[in-house]
């Protein structure tokens, strides 16, 4: 009895291991490019705690376009609810830090997984508060004293990114993406993004969002415009790299 139990256990374990090996995973990458003359960021006026916040050059971050027209802070995530998760990513990382630094939020768009801890930190010498306007999760608004921190966790995902603001310093705005899986990212300063270890061999649905454009309704790839209703783009994922190329987002999309 005992022997057979051990044997069957070993078989199951072996099967599980082989199942993992049989799976293939792909990387989705691409780059968002601004279709139009790159806008210049307006300077924000720090009218509270001027002696500290006034020292920093604060720029509006609602639309950040690089010199080569790459668009930063575009949110991309895999929308499929039951998407298979790569075993290396099964448990969420330790924590995500959202810092109140130089009288702005760093990063401007933070990505957190359900069950993961968000640490809201204050590296400034003035007190802040962080008003997290989640919809499905209980919203929170904690005082974060100079050098202090607060932790927030999220039980459910958010369909749209939640705004995080500081009521003491009204120019401070950032966004929080809460997803139930690890397949979510934000484009870097050069507009590029990468989502690793997505299950290959099928089709997944990407959701593309930007704070100024909302759900991006149209992307142009190699001169060909593609309508993507509600910012949802279906992508076939093969093992290895899946480069979506340069996706041009027309300037008009951001005039909302």
């Amino acid at each position, binding site marked *: 009895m005992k022997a057979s139990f051990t044997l069957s256990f070993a078989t199951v374990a072996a099967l599980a291991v082989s199942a993992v090996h049989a799976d293939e995973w792909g990387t989705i990458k691409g780059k968002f490019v601004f279709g139009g003359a790159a806008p210049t960021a307006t300077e924000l006026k720090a009218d509270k705690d001027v002696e500290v916040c006034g020292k920093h050059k604060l720029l509006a971050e609602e639309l950040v376009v690089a010199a080569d027209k790459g668009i930063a802070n575009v949110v991309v995530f895999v929308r499929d609810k039951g998407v298979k998760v790569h075993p290396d990513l099964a448990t969420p990382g330790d924590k995500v830090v959202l810092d109140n630094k130089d009288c702005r939020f760093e990063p401007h768009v933070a990505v957190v997984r359900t069950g993961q801890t968000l640490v809201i930190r204050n590296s400034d010498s003035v007190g802040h*508060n962080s*008003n997290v306007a989640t*919809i499905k999760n209980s919203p929170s608004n904690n005082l974060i*004293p100079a050098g*202090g921190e607060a932790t927030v966790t999220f039980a459910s995902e958010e369909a749209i990114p939640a705004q995080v603001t500081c009521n003491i310093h009204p120019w401070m705005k950032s966004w929080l993406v809460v997803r139930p899986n690890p397949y979510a990212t934000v484009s870097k300063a050069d507009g590029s993004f990468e989502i690793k270890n997505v299950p290959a061999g099928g089709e997944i649905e990407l959701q593309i969002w930007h704070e100024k454009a909302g759900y991006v309704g149209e992307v142009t790839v190699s001169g060909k415009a593609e309508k993507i209703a509600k910012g949802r783009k279906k992508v076939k994922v093969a093992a290895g790299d899946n480069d979506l190329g340069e996706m041009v987002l027309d300037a008009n999309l951001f005039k909302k």
Partner: protein
Amino acid sequence: MTPETMPRRSSIAFAGLIVCLAALTGCGKTPPAYFRPNMVEATKQRLTPDQEKQVATILLAMFGTPDEPVCLPETGLDEAKLRLAAGPVRSDIVGRKNGLYREHCGHCHGVTGDALGPTAAFLNPYPRDYRPGVFKFKSTERADKPTHADLVRVLHKGIPGTSMPSFALLPAAQVDALAEYVKYLSIRGETELTLMRAYFELDDEAQGSLPETREFLIDETLVTVADKWKAAADAEIQVPPMPADIDLVASIAKGKELFYGDKANCVKCHGVTGLGDGQANDYDDWNKAIVEIGKELSSGSAAARETSTSGMSPDELSEHRAQLAWLDKFGRVLDGDALEPRTIPPRNLRHGIYRGGRRPIDLYYRIHAGINGAPMPAAKGTVPPEEIWHIVNYVRSLPYELDGELGADKPMLARDRF
């Protein structure tokens, strides 16, 4: 007056007289009351007329009408109390007053609890809109619902400094029924919001229609909303009592230090004078929602004006027209279903008027948990209980601070102080 207009005027007067007589004799039947749909959210979510209709149908089945409320067991509400509060003002068969909500609350908070009653626009602050399920003055953590006792307390005491009166003269059973009915309207409103937001998350296969299954409508939607109310019953903040041997003068001094210090940071909004003049341009959540829609609307209209229709493909043209129609609809919805947004001033702490109650524990709750829906953040976790009590003591001393340079013996206007 020309002779030509004479007969017309008198005929209008005559028609008016007929209408008045009809009203007096009661030959016209009062139309049944109805819940107003949340058109601001419906338009924001770009719901189609069919989707608006689906939400209305689901809500009718779940909650009934203002005259005939439906009380599903999942709401955890007491049907007998709802019946006492619902419907037109009347006496029932045993001579008991019914229709309490419409008698006492509806003219400001609206039949729907949407704060769009006929008097709402004339009040400052505006009455509470129950539909987002957010309440300010309570004994629970910031994002939690109020307890039943919290609602009863607000009804009993009223909200000083606002138009909300005290209903202390009503029998306890009536106040109790009204508190229950407020919960009913709030659960209904929050369910409506949840349903309207759910369309966005539908997959393409759903073809824009919410699943009308028990699992989705009851288990995922209604229960999620109602359970937050049930949870509030046990969620009262445990407040360690103020140390009995506390040295009040020393405590006030410590509270003052905290008030102006970087940890509690009260000064940033309530101002160096404590007059509430530190942060004058913030909005509460209800008004902020309207402000943000207004911004979207004006930038959307500006973008639409700049767009040239020449060279558009038929598809692009119809999309452009749909956008114009949406902007136009949103403008009308805001005119009819939203009040002009107002900023929220931080409380002037030298008046001695405390909206959420003047007991020390009321101030403790406000500082510990912050104020839900308002910019006031929670000090919980940052400021330990003993220090919160110091701040409470300092705040309670502010209206009577006589020796300081900003004392009550000095002019109360900020401009006179500098």
